[in-house]
């Protein structure tokens, strides 16, 4: 067993995601407190891996891994973890990290702390602060045993601390691609033709509180009066009330408008990932304890329909 921290980085179209750098920066801090090394792990080809401030970088470079494959990536990471016996394995709690972290936990018996906002060293072990229940509670948990898996929410640590130029050591994939049951077929590009919400200066964003497709029109009218565009949180899109192109958040788009007016969005961590950098955030929600009020600049505990209609009369 070592005191090393393995960081499972992620990349798409030749670019690493911010969360990769965020975790490497955090891993350096943890490794130095634990007397181990921060090791960045890059799985897949088609990317330049000498970009981290890690103590070392391992690049499992194989053409068969150039596209994300949960089965193949899981097996590669499991083999690495067994070989290196690290103290901590860090994943992003992202659309790719979520496919592997819990699987690896069940495979290895190592505890997983997900939704991590912070990790610190206490008494020779680590303590993880995780968001739970849609951000309504925070839990401090101490993983038991020799190895822990931590899955970090994007945006929890500074990006800069993980940026560097450590030269990577490449290794071949230990996985026989022919034996895989999951096969990548093709990439699906985002559907074009709709307005690009990431390019809008003003967004009126609706959540589950909008109640039904028939009420979207009210948000559209308000947006029109403000010269804004309507965007939404995931439940609205999953319900088919607005197209996927309008979705803000972890599985949607990241936006940074001048105005983000939120109607009926409670502010789950997945949504916050997509909009917390907006310049002015105003939230209207009936739940006075909605987590969004910890993030918004202005808030009101009110009925969104009454507020929207009254605003329309004034605009």
């Amino acid at each position, binding site marked *: 067993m070592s005191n090393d921290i393995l960081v499972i980085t992620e990349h*798409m179209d030749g670019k690493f995601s911010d969360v990769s750098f965020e975790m490497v920066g955090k891993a350096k801090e943890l490794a130095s407190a634990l007397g181990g090394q921060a090791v960045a792990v890059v799985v897949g080809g088609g990317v330049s891996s000498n970009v981290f401030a890690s103590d070392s970088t391992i690049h499992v470079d194989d053409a068969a891994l150039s596209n994300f494959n949960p089965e193949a990536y899981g097996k590669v990471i499991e083999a690495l973890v067994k070989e290196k016996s690290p103290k901590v394995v860090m994943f992003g709690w992202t*659309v*790719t990290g*979520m*496919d592997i*972290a*819990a*699987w690896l*936990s*069940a495979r290895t018996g*190592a*505890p*997983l*702390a*997900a939704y991590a906002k912070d990790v610190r060293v206490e008494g020779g072990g680590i303590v993880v602060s*995780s*968001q739970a*229940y849609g951000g*309504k*509670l*925070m*839990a*401090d*948990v*101490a*993983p038991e*045993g020799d190895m822990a898996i931590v899955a970090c929410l994007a945006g929890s640590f500074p990006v800069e601390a993980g940026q560097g130029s450590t030269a990577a050591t490449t290794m071949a994939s230990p996985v026989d691609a022919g034996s*895989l*049951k*999951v*096969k*990548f*077929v*093709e*990439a699906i590009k985002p*559907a074009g033709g709709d307005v690009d919400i990431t390019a809008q200066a*003003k967004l009126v964003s609706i959540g589950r509180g909008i109640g039904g497709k028939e009420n979207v029109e009210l948000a559209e009218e308000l947006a029109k009066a*403000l010269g804004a565009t309507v965007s939404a949180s995931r439940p609205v*899109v*999953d*319900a088919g009330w607005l197209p996927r192109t309008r*979705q803000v958040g*972890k*599985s949607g788009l990241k936006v940074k408008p*001048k*105005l983000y007016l939120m109607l009926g969005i409670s502010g789950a961590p997945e949504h916050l990932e997509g909009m917390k950098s907006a310049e002015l*955030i*105003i939230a*209207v929600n009936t739940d006075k*304890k909605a*987590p969004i009020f*910890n*993030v*918004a*600049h*202005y808030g*009101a505990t009110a009925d969104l329909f009454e*507020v929207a209609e*009254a605003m329309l009369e004034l*605009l």
Partner: protein
Amino acid sequence: MNIVVAIKHIPSIADDLPVKGNNVDFDSVDFVLNEWDEHSIEQAVLIKEAVGGTVTVIGVDLIGELDNALHLALAKGADKVVKITADDPAADSHMQAKWLSEAIKGMGADMVFAGVQASNDLDGQIGPMIAAYLDMPYIGGVSSIEANGDSATVNKEFAGGAGAKYSVHMPFVAGVQSAPKPPRYAPVSKVRQMAQSATVEKVAPSGDASSGLAFKKMAPPVVTGHAEMIEGSSKEVAAKIVELLKSKGLA
């Protein structure tokens, strides 16, 4: 096609979540079906409608109130429902995934679906763990599944509308993000009819697993910033928002 859908009964986050000791006070909260489970049930029923087969919905009964969710699943098109009688509201994802895996093992499933995540997945989601315990591959963030013989075409979502298409050999476990169509509505009369006529199969929990997480503290988040709250009636709130926007040149 034999499809098993593993569901999770979770504390509702629509209300306050009181804390007792270092965990949620489970006696004081309502339990609801995980919202993503509605999508995995819908996806299963859509496949059954397309190619035939059976849909079995199974969940861990944590507080003796899972029947409602199971009757709803039957009303939406599930053929069979099973509850694991645990009576342990604090059972974590590892524990539930283990019990579910032991119960699913003998079902001969071609595909196992679970919601991609749940708001109480502090120790991870049940889908990938069921896959690990059953030694099946897992793919999550799934937005559509089509069965073709002994494999399925699975679309996985990445961010921003991008995604990828995979071919997955059965049996496998999928974490459903959303069904290709919004979950169907089941009339109350039909749910009631199921409650009166249907049989919920009961299975005792078998197997043991644990998250391995020691809870040191649970509390509402320490608020570093808070919105400046606009008080008053809806009309007054609207007027103040419009005034604010005008003062910033945004309206």
